[in-house]
């Protein structure tokens, strides 16, 4: 096990900078998730960390050793790939033992380690099969087995669950988390799925356009997003965003003047954010009426879509997701009709404010 230190690492392809200077400290034994939309540079960062891509600039330390210019095999890391990358011509036993063989370990030691890893991941019954004879979940377990058998100082995982179906993904998510708790190896995990990030990570690094947007624990990201991108990226459904202007310490939301905690100059254009989870059915501190344009029922709760009018702000990256309007996620198992007037309310403390120009959070 080891801590990982990334110092001002950047990556450019000619004039195109895909990764802006990137610094990050990963604690010993931490489960850190890099998350962001496609093309944000998260996989590039992981490949640089693995040594599969050279960094254009900066330094990487694993433990106290600088590994910036070391070959992948000399970094003492293991990697799990999105498509598993199991060697199709080798059996499960040979796949798991491949890395040990490359390191010159004796056949008896390899067999003992392979057996232990295979038992840990419950693939010991398939050791003589080829990868093509395994299901998706079994292949993923073999890929994990190949990683843990070497007892590396760090695990790198590149969207390892994205090829699995939804049910298996949830199952494997729990297995990977349990495995991490058991072996305790420092893990850097890349995903574009915020649910994976939120459920598995000790800390999450949110990336966009090759830049870190925020590094924080999952709950902090949800409660205190640093900017509009993080606010709209984290949470499902995404945060409701409304254009407003500050007047005498208040903003007008849904026709109501709501006091804001932060001190903001009068006339400053802001974006107010309110999570769908914090809108309740019925009257409350700030109440307003809406006519739902769509009601989606998930059984115990409902997504109530309504029109935010001219105030509604659609963040560039979420244009499609927000096209149905604003959303309230309410606990309600009864019937709610579309087009029928409905009272919603929220607590002013749950309101987030962002500077409309810089998109940074405004806090008191």
């Amino acid at each position, binding site marked *: 096990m080891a801590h990982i230190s990334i110092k001002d690492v950047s990556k450019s392809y000619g004039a195109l900078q895909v990764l802006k200077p990137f610094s990050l400290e990963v604690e010993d034994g931490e489960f850190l998730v890099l998350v962001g939309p496609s093309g944000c540079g998260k996989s590039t960062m992981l490949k640089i960390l693995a040594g599969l891509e050279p960094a254009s600039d900066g330094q990487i330390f694993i433990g106290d050793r600088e590994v910036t210019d070391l070959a*992948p*095999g000399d970094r003492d890391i293991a990697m799990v*790939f999105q498509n598993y*990358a*199991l060697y199709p*011509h080798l059996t499960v036993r040979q796949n798991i033992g491949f890395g040990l063989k490359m390191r010159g370990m004796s056949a008896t030691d390899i067999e003992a380690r392979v057996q232990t890893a295979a038992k840990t991941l419950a693939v010991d019954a398939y050791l003589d099969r080829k990868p093509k004879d395994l299901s998706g979940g079994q292949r993923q377990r073999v890929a994990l087995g190949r990683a843990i058998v070497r007892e590396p100082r760090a695990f790198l995982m590149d969207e390892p669950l994205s090829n699995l179906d939804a049910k298996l993904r949830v199952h494997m998510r729990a297995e990977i988390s349990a495995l991490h708790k058991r072996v305790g190896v420092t893990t850097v995990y890349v995903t574009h799925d915020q649910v994976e990030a939120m459920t598995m990570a000790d800390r999450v690094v949110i990336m966009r356009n090759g830049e870190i947007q925020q590094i924080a624990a999952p709950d902090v990201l949800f409660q205190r997003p640093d900017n509009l991108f993080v606010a709209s990226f984290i949470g499902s459904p995404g945060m409701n965003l409304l254009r407003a202007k500050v007047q005498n310490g208040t903003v007008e939301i849904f026709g109501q003047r709501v006091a804001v905690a932060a001190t903001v100059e009068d006339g400053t254009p802001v974006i107010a954010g309110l999570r769908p989870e914090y809108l309740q059915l019925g009257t409350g501190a700030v109440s307003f009426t809406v006519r739902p344009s769509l009601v989606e029922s998930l059984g115990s709760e409902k997504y109530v879509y309504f029109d935010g009018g001219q105030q509604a702000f659609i963040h560039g990256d979420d244009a499609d997701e927000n096209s149905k309007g604003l959303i309230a996620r309410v606990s309600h198992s009864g019937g709610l009709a579309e087009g029928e007037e409905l009272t919603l309310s929220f607590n002013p403390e749950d309101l987030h404010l962002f500077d409309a120009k810089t998109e940074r959070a405004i806090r008191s």
Partner: protein
Amino acid sequence: MKRTPLQSLVLYAAVVLAVVLILFPVYWLLVTALSTTAELTVLPPNFWPEVPQVQTFSRVWAERPIPTWLLNSTLAALGSVSLSMVISVLAGYALSRFSVRGSQSMGIFILTAKMLPATLLVIPLFAIFRQIGLIGSLWSLVIAHSTLIIPFTTWMLKGYFDTIPRELEQAAMVDGCSPLGAMFRVVLPISTPGLAATSLYAFVLSWADYAYARTFLVNAPESWTANLGITTMRGEYTTEWNEVAAAAVFVAIPIMLIYIFLERYLVGGLTAGAEK
């Protein structure tokens, strides 16, 4: 879509016609080899000899240096395959894995050599081989055939390597392989169908050559390949066509055996590129 009986009939008729067209020369070769010289000159022709002359085969085998010719053909073909595969595996892999500026036009450039007729290349090659003393040696064939084979096999293998996920090599490198080690330990073993298909192509091209062998080896009978040797069986006044056909059957047998042996790899190799 289900075919109507008429469509099926037309389809099967077309298949039968194609098979007949392809197999007729093979059948006629056998008929010629098994007939007497007199039977070969009658009109209308006999479609099967009255008494098949099996002894023609043993006579040709005993009287002509068929084993030497076959050995020479085999050596030239194996040499060409080995040299071509070493070069085209490395070149195809490099073209597949590394973004080289102008690699697209490099592909066209490589294939241009394939488009040139053999007779155009034979003259400069003859001049070069005479200077370095390779005329009369099988090495001249190995090198000349390789110049024809390498462009095409490089392109075939590049296409094959393109279908192999890069993550496999990356995984091997994380597991401790060097880039070249990842290629030898992971990429090449799973490229067996592609390697078999390209090797067979190379072998057949070398085996079937006549123009280069005729030009470089005509004055060195000990180095004659099978195709060149067979053409010397034509007499000045008469030609024993049944003997020529029997010799041709001997030449065809090795290549047919190789096809039968490699068939499953060959089909896999030819279709693998279509997956992407």
